């Protein structure tokens, strides 16, 4: 029951002293802003692990043969790396951090629809993450199946898979609850006068994302349960020895995991759609086209999963159907890119750091997307499937896309979230190193894939050596950039200069509240009039 304590409106959410003290004031808080930060900090912990594993792989691959670890370790490393990065960083990533923080403010609400469920979803996140970590630390060996858990290897492997599988299952639940919360919030809690087509694009992208989370995640949930049951009881559903079909596992896995890649990228695109108009001081170009493309990606993206299985022996009919659908889902992405670039046209561009991240986002996203087209075509997919080319594709688009957008978003909203400004020079230096390092790290992998180096390879033939050295060097440059960026942000959160309420002259609602925002965001719920809109500059 909500007690009728008066919540003061001049206290910001960071300083607010509620019922609980210290850390409990955070982990028992149902304030969407605090939950957002809880997510951010817990993700950061996992992220450090993920990055370290990524660097370890690059170090191992710097030369053929054993460098720093054995094959079994390498396999575990890329498995845990993939599981952490996908299930714990990029899927919750923008929705759980910026969605939680900004969505209610951007639509003029005091909180999300179900604040307690929101907190619960964070608990699920932590529980899932801990289970995955438990699978690393205890039992007979770290999981070594790859993040895809392909049958039948996933029940042949003698490693400690069950906790990892259940961990992923629980993480899925966390993601479902977040999505559910967002949909209800958007349906029920928009400020008076804010019609659907006056809603900013970031909430729109969260809306599309939430539907995918809701409809796709349960499928992978049940699939993982089946794998677990297979391991425990041997029910036979995916075990060829018992009549099951391992390819059916792949269908079910990708029915979720393809839409999941759009769970990652849609909010990233949403954040970019906020940054670009703000720094161009211009109405977004083609507002409705961007909304339509968001919904189209969410919808069509549900039906293209088979492009991960072109060599698994699907029927020919299924193969070209999936190929056509894959190409169709590329078009809404194209529309977005065109609209972003057109928004810059005749704008008044202020090339601040969030904008730089946004521009570099568009660049790497295009490269990633174009390599997706190579993968979507049947003949070329057969050639580069399961090679380093795919690894390059998804690092460009997942990590390039989501990572660049995340950093754009955090530099954009940082003054609002913490009420302080970071050091802009260091931010630019970090960005420059990061971008250069990124390109050096992943571009050689395209080449490696084109000359035929399979992925998940611990060791390789000498002809792949040169490109791998370059790539490993890149990983260091990028990490250096990352360190600069992160340290800069960390220091500024405490000691940065006090930020203005609206440093970038944005027009969305979050820029109307104090920085950091007060506990319940708005003293009075804002009302949108006829003429108001998120991008009316």
């Amino acid at each position, binding site marked *: 029951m909500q007690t009728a304590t008066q919540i003061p409106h001049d206290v910001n959410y960071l300083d607010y002293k509620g019922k609980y003290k210290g850390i409990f004031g955070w982990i028992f808080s149902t304030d969407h802003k605090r939950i957002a930060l809880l997510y951010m900090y817990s993700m950061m912990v996992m992220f450090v692990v993920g990055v370290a594993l990524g660097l370890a792989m690059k170090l191992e691959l710097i030369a053929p043969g054993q460098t720093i670890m054995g094959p079994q370790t390498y396999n575990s490393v890329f498995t845990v790396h993939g599981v952490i990065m996908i299930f714990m960083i990029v899927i919750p990533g923008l929705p759980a951090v910026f969605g939680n923080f900004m969505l209610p403010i951007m639509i003029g609400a005091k909180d999300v629809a179900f604040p307690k469920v929101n907190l619960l979803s964070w608990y699920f996140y932590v529980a899932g993450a801990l289970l995955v970590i438990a699978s690393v630390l205890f039992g007979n060996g770290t999981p070594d199946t790859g993040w895809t858990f392909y049958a039948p290897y996933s029940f042949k492997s003698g490693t400690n898979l069950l906790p990892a599988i259940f961990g992923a299952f629980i993480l899925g639940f966390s993601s479902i609850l977040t999505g559910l919360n967002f949909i209800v919030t958007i349906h029920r809690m928009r400020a008076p006068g804010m019609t659907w087509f006056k809603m900013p694009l970031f909430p729109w992208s969260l809306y599309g994302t939430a539907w995918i989370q809701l*409809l796709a995640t349960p499928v992978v949930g049940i699939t993982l349960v089946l794998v677990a049951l297979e391991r425990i009881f041997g029910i036979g559903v995916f075990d060829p020895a018992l009549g099951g079909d391992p390819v059916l596992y792949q*269908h079910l896995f990708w029915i979720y995991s393809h839409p999941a890649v759009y769970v990652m990228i849609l909010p990233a695109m949403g954040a970019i759609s906020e940054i670009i108009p703000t720094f161009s001081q211009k109405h977004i170009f083609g507002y409705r086209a961007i909304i339509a493309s968001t919904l189209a990606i969410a919808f069509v993206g549900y039906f293209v999963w*088979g492009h991960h299985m072109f060599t698994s*022996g*699907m*029927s*020919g*009919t*299924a193969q070209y159907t999936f190929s056509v659908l894959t190409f169709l889902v590329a078009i809404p992405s194209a529309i977005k890119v065109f609209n972003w670039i057109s928004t810059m046209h005749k704008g008044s561009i202020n090339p601040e750091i969030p904008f730089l991240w946004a521009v570099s986002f568009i660049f790497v996203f295009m490269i990633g997307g174009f390599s997706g087209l190579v993968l979507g075509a049947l003949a070329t997919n057969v050639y580069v499937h399961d090679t380093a080319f795919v690894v390059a594709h998804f690092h460009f688009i997942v990590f390039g896309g989501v990572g660049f957008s995340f950093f754009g978003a955090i530099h954009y909203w940082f003054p609002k979230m913490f009420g302080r400004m970071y050091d802009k020079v260091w931010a630019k230096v970090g960005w420059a190193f990061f971008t250069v390092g990124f390109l050096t790290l992943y571009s050689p992998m395209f080449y490696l894939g084109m000359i035929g180096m399979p992925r998940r390879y611990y060791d390789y033939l000498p002809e792949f050596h040169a490109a791998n050295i370059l790539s490993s060097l890149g990983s260091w440059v990028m990490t250096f950039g990352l360190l600069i960026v992160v340290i800069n942000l960390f220091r500024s959160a405490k000691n940065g200069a006090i930020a203005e309420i609206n440093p970038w002259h944005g027009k969305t609602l979050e820029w109307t509240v104090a920085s950091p925002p007060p506990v319940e965001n708005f003293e009075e719920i804002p009302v949108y009039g006829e003429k108001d809109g998120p991008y009316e500059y």
Partner: protein
Amino acid sequence: MEKEKHHIVPYKTYFYILISLLVLTFMSIGITKINLGGYSVLGALIFSTIKSVLVLYWFMHLKFDQPFLRFMVGFVTLVFLAVIFITFLDYYYR
């Protein structure tokens, strides 16, 4: 908070729905007793579909709720059917 709402469904509506559901259940048991070959699956599914529509519309109040809920249910069903359909493109033509 919203004033209007809550259409109270009379008990007897529910009772009639139950009777129809039971009748449909027995009909579907009956139809699978006669050998229809491959069509018995289809028959049983048709009965199940009718039953689920009854449950959705009356027991679950869709009939009295806002249209967008009905739209969502329909949409989700369609998405699911499309997924099955596409999966069968693989298995049927293999």
